[in-house]
């Protein structure tokens, strides 16, 4: 449970090719980390697989930042 932020950060770093220190709590995937809209879909897919959860489309839309992702996954898993 406590390693969720690290696992999420690893996925984001690998997928978007950004520096680890850029992935802060409030970092927006699109505005701060250079993701396009399809990248955000792929990130959600990667989160689903890493954590064995289902993220429905309407929930996926609310996941805009690194912090959003960690919060959602903590609640879901």
């Amino acid at each position, binding site marked *: 449970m406590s390693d969720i932020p690290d696992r999420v950060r690893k996925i984001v770093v690998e997928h978007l090719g950004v520096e680890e220190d850029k992935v802060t709590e409030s970092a927006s995937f699109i505005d701060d980390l250079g993701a396009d809209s*399809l990248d955000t879909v792929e990130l959600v*897919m990667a989160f689903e697989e890493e954590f064995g959860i289902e993220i429905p489309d309407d929930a996926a839309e609310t996941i805009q930042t690194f912090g959003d992702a960690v919060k959602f996954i903590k609640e879901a898993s």
Partner: protein
Amino acid sequence: MFDLTGKCALITGASGGIGGAIAKALHEAGATVGLSGTREAPLQALADELGERAFVLPCNLSDPEAVAALPKQAAEAMGSVDILVNNAGITRDNLFMRMSDEEWQSVLDVNLTATFKLCKGVLRGMMKSRWGRIVNISSVVGATGNPGQGNYAAAKAGMVGMSKSLAYEVASRGITVNAVAPGFIETAMTDKLNDDQKAGILGQIPAGRMGSADEIASAVLYLASPEAGYVTGATLHVNGGMAML
């Protein structure tokens, strides 16, 4: 020339003339093929003929649950779906003034909505592997219209617009989405035409003959190949010149 070794292709409507030819062409090029269709017997016969690397995946595309399940079944049977050929289609011809809502809806459901759902269902795997080929079999009537086929022409034109939109979205992930638009092709469907009807049709075709299912399959094979990696959002018309678009 085109080598699909190691690629897995799902073909809908594989029990029909054109679908069967597509399956054979992709299989001959080395692909593993998933043969989908409503009638299991002809699919099994085709699979037996092809031998190895052929799987039978019966699916009724007018059943939404079966459509939703098909991409998963295909991926489980073959290991992945790298190539999707949406070939299945039905006709419910009628004059526009007489066309029932049911005739309209059933054609849209099978020809367009099922295509949308199957594309969506295979995209995840293609996105992950950064390679994919989707070939949607449209029709010349999608571009030209045809009396008595308002529903069919709408669905086939819809496939083209859908393919182009999807092509935009996934091009950066190594996935191409194209359409093939056959003209008049010799199949069980066109065998039923009488000589007068055939003569009327042939008069409109500069090539002076109907096309063969193999000629459609060749177009699909090209678009499914690695060589066609820079072709996306295109519609390849295979119609003997009857409509030069």
